[in-house]
């Protein structure tokens, strides 16, 4: 009998040698005449334990990790496939039953329900794990009722702006047009975030299903996934999954025998951060430079090629299937205040146990950083965290008890955004981080408006002076003035939010700017 062994194909797992581990296991098994069936699953998102190798047993999967290729012959020596053997149980990499790992067990995985469990490109696997149940329910509903279900679930845009998804869809549904589009924003420009990548690489069908439901809901027959060019693995997985879905009748004309058509295509982005902004993205999809458009008109009314368009983040769309499958109330029962449901949180930076934590809104930063993250990777105190990407504020220790909730973050002049949390230990120099925020804005500015284009470059120059110790008080005042101009005068959030990291660094860490307090 052949034993099933799972080894992730997720690109982060590959980045620490999963491919080498897979071939070492195949070779060692062949050499020893042992029958193994390798399944390349997605990652469970416990990245510090990658490469995590799992062995299928009657009781569930038993995990070993982090496995290096050099550990493989030792694992065979310990009879690791025979998980009941004393030598296997005693192996230093044995983690026990995967599902019993506290880090995983305490999570509330709704959007990520299948991630790490299934073979990402196997449609059969998807179907065997509740795949396409949401679509089946959607096909029984009127368009308006699908939209109402999404509205009632309380789902808000997971790209960062947290606009209610159902209300956006309703605008598109209400537009009369010969053609409408569903555009998935898969540009995932925010550093410190990787949940979109994980969905696309590890459960691509859930995104395809979500986009199909969106198409049926608003009357759109064509979808595009605008994919970050830095994600070649996601591109390959998505294209393979789309082809299989099409072959099986889940995409194309008359989806699973219904009267609905929906076609889907992946388009590669080309490395411009601003193209994650929805109107810049649409320009890019149309084949132009990614200059931000004025809003209104909203993309929902005049979007791609001037037609009504739903633009949604990967996670927003990938959450739709479970809402349609289990019902609006099931989803809305999770969360706090106006932040309903769950958020796939990404722990990154200087953190011991980095990875994907999906939980209901309401958990605090401190719980995430210490209970899940295990503190810093360096073992030094965590001095600051940046939440919400390069346009998010830096938070000091005194704010670590803030719950993850859109409104709670807004109240402390911070941004929850796409749920990325980047930790820094006490070696970080916040003046350098403030300088970097301006520098990044200068590199990525689309150039359409002056506060952003000029302000960011000026910001770098002034920060250089502050770091060099020249006229500190005067120059910090100048940074504040510049920031106010950018906050109030920028056309989009790239220029408009760069002041968040800059001013939060000054306000919370004045010592790094060699000033006594932030009052200057």
């Amino acid at each position, binding site marked *: 009998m052949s034993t099933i062994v799972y080894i992730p194909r997720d690109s982060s797992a590959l980045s620490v040698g999963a491919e080498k581990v897979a071939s070492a296991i195949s070779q060692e098994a062949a050499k020893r005449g042992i029958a193994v069936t390798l399944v390349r699953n997605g990652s469970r998102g416990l990245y510090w334990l990658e490469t995590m190798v799992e062995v299928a047993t009657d009781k569930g999967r038993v995990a070993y990790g982090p496995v290096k290729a050099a550990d493989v012959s030792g694992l065979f020596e310990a009879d690791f496939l025979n998980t009941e053997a004393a030598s296997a149980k005693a192996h230093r990499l044995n983690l026990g039953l995967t599902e019993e790992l506290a880090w995983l067990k305490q999570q509330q995985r709704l959007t990520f329900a299948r991630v790490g469990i299934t073979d990402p490109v196997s449609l059969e696997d998807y179907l065997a794990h509740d795949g396409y149940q949401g679509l089946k329910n959607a096909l029984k509903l009127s368009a308006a009722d699908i939209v109402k279900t999404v509205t009632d679930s309380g789902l808000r845009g997971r790209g960062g702006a947290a606009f209610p998804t159902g209300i956006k869809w309703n605008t598109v549904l209400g537009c009369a047009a010969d053609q409408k589009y569903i555009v998935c924003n898969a540009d995932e420009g925010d550093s410190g975030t990787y949940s979109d*990548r994980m969905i696309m690489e590890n459960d691509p069908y859930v995104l395809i299903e979500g986009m199909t439901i969106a198409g049926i809901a608003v009357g759109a027959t064509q979808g595009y996934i605008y994919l970050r060019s830095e994600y070649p693995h996601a591109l390959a997985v998505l294209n393979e999954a789309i082809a299989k879905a099409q072959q099986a009748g889940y995409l194309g004309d008359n989806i699973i025998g219904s009267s609905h058509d929906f076609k889907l295509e992946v388009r590669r982005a080309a490395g411009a951060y601003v193209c994650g902004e929805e109107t810049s993205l649409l320009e890019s999809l149309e084949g132009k430079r990614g200059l931000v458009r004025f809003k209104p008109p909203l993309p929902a009314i005049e979007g791609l090629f001037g037609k009504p368009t739903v633009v949604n983040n990967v996670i927003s769309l990938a959450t739709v299937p479970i809402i349609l499958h289990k019902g609006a109330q099931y989803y809305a029962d999770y969360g706090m205040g106006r932040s309903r449901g769950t958020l796939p949180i990404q722990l990154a930076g200087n953190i011991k146990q980095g990875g994907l934590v999906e939980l209901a809104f309401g958990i605090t930063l401190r719980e995430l950083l210490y209970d899940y993250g295990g503190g810093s990777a360096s073992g030094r105190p965590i001095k600051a965290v940046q939440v919400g990407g*390069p346009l998010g504020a830096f938070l000091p220790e005194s704010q670590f008890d803030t719950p993850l909730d859109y409104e709670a973050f807004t109240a402390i002049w911070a941004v929850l955004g796409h749920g990325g949390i980047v930790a820094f230990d006490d070696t970080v120099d916040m003046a350098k*981080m403030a300088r970097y925020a301006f520098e990044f804005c200068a*590199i990525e500015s689309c150039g359409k408006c002056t506060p952003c284009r000029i302000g960011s470059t000026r910001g770098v120059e002034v920060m250089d002076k502050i770091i060099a110790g020249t006229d500190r008080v005067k120059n910090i005042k100048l940074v504040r003035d510049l920031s106010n101009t950018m906050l109030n005068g920028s056309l989009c959030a790239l220029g408009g939010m760069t002041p968040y990291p800059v001013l939060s660094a000054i306000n919370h860490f004045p010592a790094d700017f060699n000033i006594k307090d932030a009052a200057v």
Partner: protein
Amino acid sequence: MLQDTLINQASVQAGWAEKLDQLIAQYKSMPGALLPLLHAIQDELSYIPESVYPKIARALALSVAEVHGVVSFYHHFKTHKPGRHVLQICRAESCQAMGSEGLEAHAKQCLSIDYHETSQDQAITLEPVYCLGNCALSPAVMLDEAIFGRVSKADLEALIQDAKKTEAQA
């Protein structure tokens, strides 16, 4: 030898003209064709030579200036032939928190070049990148399409040495 090289180049050029026509024919009628076409060209040649602008412009009813404007807007598109390999080092926050600055300096020193430059042996072009989605395993780098996490200076040096020895990816 020299003659062989010249003949080779000539045949690549000749083959390329046909290939370009083929790509243009393939993408021309696609809505928003320009980016997919530019990607296809760069996949083929590893960069986008200015010599292709006029043909593209004609096929898509654009001006040459418009094609140029698009190519130059996007960081991903290269206007000059890169080395046999492209090494991207992540400069974004999560990787900074894990020491990417040291990696950047080390790469520049090992290769005796700055960002956007190619090593003298034409082996490696060095580029910055702002997040590879590998932030749980920072610092991260990408060599061609292969991604690496928790990269130490020694790892990086080994990668560079290996890349110098090997041919470009097909």
